[in-house]
């Protein structure tokens, strides 16, 4: 049983590594995230539970982004931006799941600022 568990864990780790290596930061994905954050902001403003799923989706994206930048030279501060965005998206999800939409709105505000700060550095203007 233990062998099966270890095998499964290794498999998942390898799969995660491959997925991380395959992940690319595309303009389409970023536009998708911009759209998602607008949905998220709207769901939170309207106090809709769908906000949690949108926030979880963003958290998952930023987690991949963090791993991607961690493996990319010369983007050290991007790792920090992605990590912060990941944490904030998690906070939004938790606040929504706890029914605290005011806290969720504050975290969405911080999340959009985090996105903007990173874009100020990394997006060609």
């Amino acid at each position, binding site marked *: 049983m233990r062998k099966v568990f270890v095998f499964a864990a290794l498999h998942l780790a390898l799969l995660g590594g491959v997925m991380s290596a395959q992940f690319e930061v595309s303009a389409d994905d970023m536009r998708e995230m911009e759209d998602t954050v607008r949905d998220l902001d*709207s769901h939170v403003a*309207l106090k809709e539970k769908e906000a949690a799923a949108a926030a979880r989706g963003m958290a998952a994206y930023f987690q991949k982004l963090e791993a991607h930048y961690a493996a990319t030279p010369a983007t050290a501060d991007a790792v920090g931006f992605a990590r912060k965005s990941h944490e904030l998206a998690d906070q939004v999800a938790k606040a929504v799941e706890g029914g605290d939409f005011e806290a969720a709105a504050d975290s969405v505000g911080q999340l959009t600022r985090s996105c903007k700060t990173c874009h100020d550095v990394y997006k060609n*203007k």
Partner: protein
Amino acid sequence: MSHHHHPSRRGFLAHAGLGLSGMALSGLTLDPAFGADPLDPTVPRAPHFAPKAKSIIWLHMAGAPSTLDLFDHKPELIRLNGTPLPDSFGKGLKTATDGGVGNLYATKRTWAQHGETGAWVSDWLPNIAKQVDKIAFLKGSKTEGSTHVISSLKLHTSGLVPGRPALGAWIQYGLGSANPDLPTFVVLPTGVGAAGGGRGAVIWSSGFLPAAYQGTAFRKGDSPILHLSRPDGVSEEEQRGTLNLLRTLNEQHAGRYPGDTELQARSRSYDLAYRMQKSAPEAVDLSKETAATKALYGIGTKETDEYGTSLLRARRLVERGVRFVHCISGAPDNSVDSWDAHNNIEKNHGVMCKQVDQPVAGLLADLQARGLLDTTLVVWASEFGRTPYGQTGDGRDHNPWGYTTWIAGGGIKPGTYGSTDEIGLRAQTGIVDTYDLQATLLHQMGLDHKRLTFTHQGRAEKATTVFGEVIKDILA
């Protein structure tokens, strides 16, 4: 405060043809904070919290002045004059817009610090320089886009394409009217160039808000709105009868098309126009203003007469409860087009500064003398600034990365907030995006930009989209 486009009992009743007020509520559920009819722009509505300001006079410097030649003194730019833009400053910027990147181009102005706040102002604005202790200079302003249309849209509507409501429309939506006899959101274009319209009605549009919330453009001269006067030979009783018949027919038509806010707006505009036959000409009639007041605004002097007239009208409008007056600076004559000085900035800004300096200073002084400055926000805004590098030898290109905006009155603390880098290319500290500017103005008007929403196509839309943060450091 929010509107939601979900089917409702009211919507059903409206569809059943129960009259104009029912039609107005079609598809809407209401926050109790709203008045009886959310589409009626003539009623007042409660703010989210106690406001500091009642009105905004938005001084739109269309075409984009070079704040490097007006407010943002840069000795390092003078030192580096004529040299190429150092890589360290331009890194990551897509710099070429209308033209290439010329060598750094130093201002030819002389500079001094003024007032107790010690704000820098160049010799192009000697009268505004005397008013600096009323002003909060936002020297780390930035935006997006590098064309007039896109950045004008962003400045006024927080969007990069047409279709979103202007800030004035959001304020009218949030607060309603303080004077049912005048439009709540008035636009005062000036000048002869195309920029006098500030890129057209899209920047004072109601966007997806009900059409009644759009800005009302006043014409120059004594008759601010075309065909407002009752025609000769028509009595007041006859006119009222005609309007009543029109209203009845419109109500019948509206019952068949309950979602048509354009019709709703048109119907309301007839009533508003009827009331404005007296109120609007009186509001813009300067005949009772003293000679001293007119002189304060530069009225009677060729270069400043038209713009000064516009700003004195703006003061009279806010005195009468108009919440948002959008004053657009066009060119005073055909010698220049607007502030858009891609070449010969000395001539261009010489003319444009002469046009606005006395009137703007006069407005600030007059508002203070009448006790109105405490409740009136005066905003100097442009779609972007201009570059520290030259263009065509003696002009400057568009600069969305760092420039100066300013706000006076309305509970704003005077002083200098933020900065650009050493040559004035990019905002470096105290960075203020247009979203933050709008969020701050809404806050001073008693509206929380995160709570002022309107549901459009299933999404709760806000004036500042998903961005915007109140600039707390400048609040008095």
